[in-house]
């Protein structure tokens, strides 16, 4: 991010919600013992959706959260206070996915009405609709915002595919009708996909637990590897990038999440949990990953909320050790998204709520003993 930050002061509008937050905060900064630090978070609950959330996303500046759910509506929220500033209307079916371009001017969505749509973020105006024979499970902009990919579902005679469109970042410009690239997934349909650094590769996670690497220009399959358990039930449910897009994390129904390198598809880290995972995110600033999941939505009624494991799990990215959990949802977490500056995260659940969490100071202070020693050694040099 090269934009120079003005010292322009903006006074945030202080609504009543914000004010409650600023009431005497119960966290105890006096507690400085190295291992016991409490972070008390007061999540903001966004209840603008009537049905299960499917994806939530921060824009690159982290000031806006976009959320899509099965109720056909896209919502845009200010992340700092949870104020909803707009909704995008037009989709005729459940929405599966949303993504915003790097300048926060264009928004792409895809859903079960077999369309992928492009919106103007500021006004909610529908700019473009692409129609497909099947539903769109995932959309993602490339890092420069010039390309947009969509993952189409496999259904009755149509194979799953990944389509790529050239995007003109100008709002008023006419967008191309025809895709520039179409990758057919013959063996196993792709469930998630994304652009690696410089859009050099397109990485896709498949239904059968494999991850494949395609050439970003030609669409040629370069490499395919079995990463997660090879079972139809163990599809890869999420793929999120590290900030520099050189590595990514996958979440799978086989209860594990893995970090892979974008160019070699080598598995760096594995995070084995006890529940099917729907989402995994890598946090900037701190070396953590956040995993979200829980029992499949259809089984939920048979268990109590406690046993459903509807918690966001924090794992240390490097030591691959669980460090804590955040409760709150009463349905499985369908998506977790991290603030691009690492100051918070939000999760969208099957229960229809988005919970926005802002990290407190102790979150950033938390260090492993070895990390602390290393810092000590560095400062002594």
């Amino acid at each position, binding site marked *: 991010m090269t934009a120079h930050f003005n010292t322009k002061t903006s006074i945030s509008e202080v609504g009543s919600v914000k004010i409650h937050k600023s009431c005497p905060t119960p966290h105890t900064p006096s507690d400085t013992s190295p291992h016991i630090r409490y972070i008390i978070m*007061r999540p903001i609950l*966004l209840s603008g959706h009537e049905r299960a959330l499917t994806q939530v996303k921060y824009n690159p500046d982290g000031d806006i959260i976009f959320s899509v759910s099965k109720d056909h509506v896209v919502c845009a929220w200010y992340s700092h206070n949870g104020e909803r500033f707009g909704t995008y209307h037009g989709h005729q079916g459940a929405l599966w996915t949303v993504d915003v371009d790097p300048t926060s001017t264009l928004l792409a969505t895809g859903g079960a009405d077999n369309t992928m749509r492009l919106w103007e973020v500021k006004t909610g105006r529908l700019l473009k609709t692409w129609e497909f024979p099947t539903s769109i499970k995932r959309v993602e902009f490339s890092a420069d915002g010039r390309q947009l990919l969509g993952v189409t579902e496999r259904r009755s005679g149509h194979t799953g595919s990944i389509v790529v469109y050239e995007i003109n970042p100008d709002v008023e410009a006419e967008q191309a009708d025809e895709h520039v690239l179409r990758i057919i997934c013959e063996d196993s349909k792709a469930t998630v996909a994304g652009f690696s650094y410089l859009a050099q590769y397109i990485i896709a996670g498949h239904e059968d637990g494999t991850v494949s690497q395609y050439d970003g220009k030609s669409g040629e399959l370069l490499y395919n590897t079995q990463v997660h358990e090879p079972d139809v039930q163990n599809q890869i449910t999420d793929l999120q990038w590290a900030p520099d897009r050189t590595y990514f994390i996958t979440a799978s129904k086989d209860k594990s999440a893995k970090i892979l390198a974008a160019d070699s598809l080598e598995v760096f880290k594995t995070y084995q949990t006890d529940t099917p995972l729907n989402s995994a995110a890598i946090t900037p600033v701190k070396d953590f990953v956040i995993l979200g999941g829980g029992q499949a939505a259809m089984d939920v009624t048979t268990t109590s909320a406690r046993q459903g494991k509807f918690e966001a799990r*924090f794992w240390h990215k490097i030591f691959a050790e669980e460090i804590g959990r955040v409760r709150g949802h009463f349905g499985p977490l369908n998506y977790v998204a991290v603030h691009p500056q690492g100051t918070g995260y939000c999760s969208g659940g099957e229960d229809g709520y988005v919970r926005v969490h802002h990290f407190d100071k102790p979150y950033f202070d938390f260090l492993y003993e070895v990390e602390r020693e290393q810092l000590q050694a560095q400062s002594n040099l």
Partner: protein
Amino acid sequence: MSRPAGRTDWAADDEEDELPQNQIIKNKDGTETIITYAVREDGKKIKTTRRIKKSVVKQIVNPRVAERKHWEKFGQEKGKPAGPQTDTVSVAENIVFRPTANWKASSDDKSEADKKKTDLKQAKIKCRICSGDHFTTKCPFKDTMGVADDATPAEMPDDAPQAGGAGAGSGSYVPPHLRGRGAGGGEKMGGKYERDDLATLRVTNVSEIAEEQDLRDMFSRYGHVTRVFLAKDRETGRAKGFAFVSYADRSDAAKACEKMDGYGFGHLILRVEFAKKPDGK
């Protein structure tokens, strides 16, 4: 918190049947009191008084972000005032999040079921037949070997928890103090005296005025009687009409059974037979 001004409003409210103006009162200590009126679904008017403290949080942000903050609202939010709307935004309860280096599910919250399971695992399980670490009912020797004779009542507290509702294999519930009592089942009323069902006679058609001592005298003729149990009515203290007589030796019992069956006692003819286990074994 209600103020005189508010009260006059209430009065006006009654006459004109419309809601009074919302009020914002600035307090001396810098807080504000906001009084709002609304009509609830059931038609009742409600007055909400909120006292809030405003604090301005200055944040230096990217100009792009600052600009976006002043965007006009659209869609369902069109025309709504700035600030979070109460219908879509609320603040959840505080959440304690404590990152720890050796975090374990057990340290935070463990489900009840898990806890029970580990409790059960930790409990000492000892088979009463072969002293193995399994339940007596699961013992591979349960058909070929009897329960070890040294299963004295003193040992029972140890055994009791694992026997659980299983009731030592008979399938029916067995109260804790009776668990682990040998072959299970049988006529349990005699408590600890009744060890050997094979030498116990059931005597029915006993006269109401009979006493235990009478029975003991009669039955002692055929051998050593270890126990006599005469069922009595708890309130009247009279015999209920049946009794159990146990012998030390089965052959004595058989002889007594033969001789005493049909014996006249107190206007009635006794009926004597070997006691049966309730499950018919």
